[in-house]
């Protein structure tokens, strides 16, 4: 019962805050609401017994990506932003599309059948600790995708430098 109450608080807070993120006029407010949203999502991960993912969520999203967003938001002209309308002309189409996706996927939930449970039970994770289990799996079975992910990050660094550079000298 108390678990469900906690979950309901987090669920309604996450939905409400994400609506606020999408509809605020001032982009700085949107970024700050998004910070609160990421902390709520991290607490939801703690609720699901995955403390490493909660830590990664706070460090990478709240500490890395949002600071990047805040830097770029502060480059733009907030005063002009407050004057003009928030939405493009096709906003009703976007709303209809989003509601249609929601209804479609909610209808398909009813036919969802969960897979048979795997070997990583709560007792095993408790005995070995979550980070160790995740690290073992990441460096043995998923080593190749892990290297590909590091390559993607390298490409992102180089691409960001090339795109944001003032002008390439001939």
């Amino acid at each position, binding site marked *: 019962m108390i678990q469900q109450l906690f*979950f309901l608080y987090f669920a309604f807070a996450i939905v409400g805050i994400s609506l606020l993120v999408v509809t605020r006029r001032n982009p700085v407010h949107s970024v700050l609401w998004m910070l609160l949203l990421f902390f709520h999502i991290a607490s939801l991960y703690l609720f699901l017994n995955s403390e490493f993912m909660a830590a990664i969520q706070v460090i990478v999203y709240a500490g890395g990506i949002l600071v990047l967003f805040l830097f770029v938001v502060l480059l733009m002209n907030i005063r002009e932003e407050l004057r003009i309308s928030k939405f493009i*002309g096709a906003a009703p189409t976007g709303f209809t599309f*989003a509601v249609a996706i*929601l209804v479609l*996927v909610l209808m398909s939930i009813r036919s969802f059948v*969960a897979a048979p449970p795997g*070997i990583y039970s709560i007792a095993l994770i408790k005995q070995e600790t979550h980070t160790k289990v*995740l690290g073992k799996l990441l460096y043995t079975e998923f080593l190749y*995708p892990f290297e590909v992910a590091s390559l993607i990050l390298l*490409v992102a660094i180089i691409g960001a430098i090339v795109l944001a550079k003032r002008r390439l000298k001939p």
Partner: protein
Amino acid sequence: MVPLHWYMVLSMTVFSIGVFGFLSRKNIIIIFMSIELMLNAVNINLIALSHYIQDMRGQILAFFVIAVAAAEAAIGLAIVIALFRNKATAHVDEVKEMRG
């Protein structure tokens, strides 16, 4: 015990809010934030499923989603800065050179 379906409904609601923001906002930075919102909704779903069917692979996938989201944010914001330099605007309806 919280039913798994509640997590899935939450994740889908956040995802469709992200779709709405992506399709209807004018400011390009908020469009990027809507993409992050959608990726987070997918992560909630993956981690909840991974907890409920007791398989760690969902969390590994969520880990990779976070790595790709970081790369995507860096590239996207670099594109926004290049757009500022060339057009001095952040509104997607004012960028229409590629319209036929």
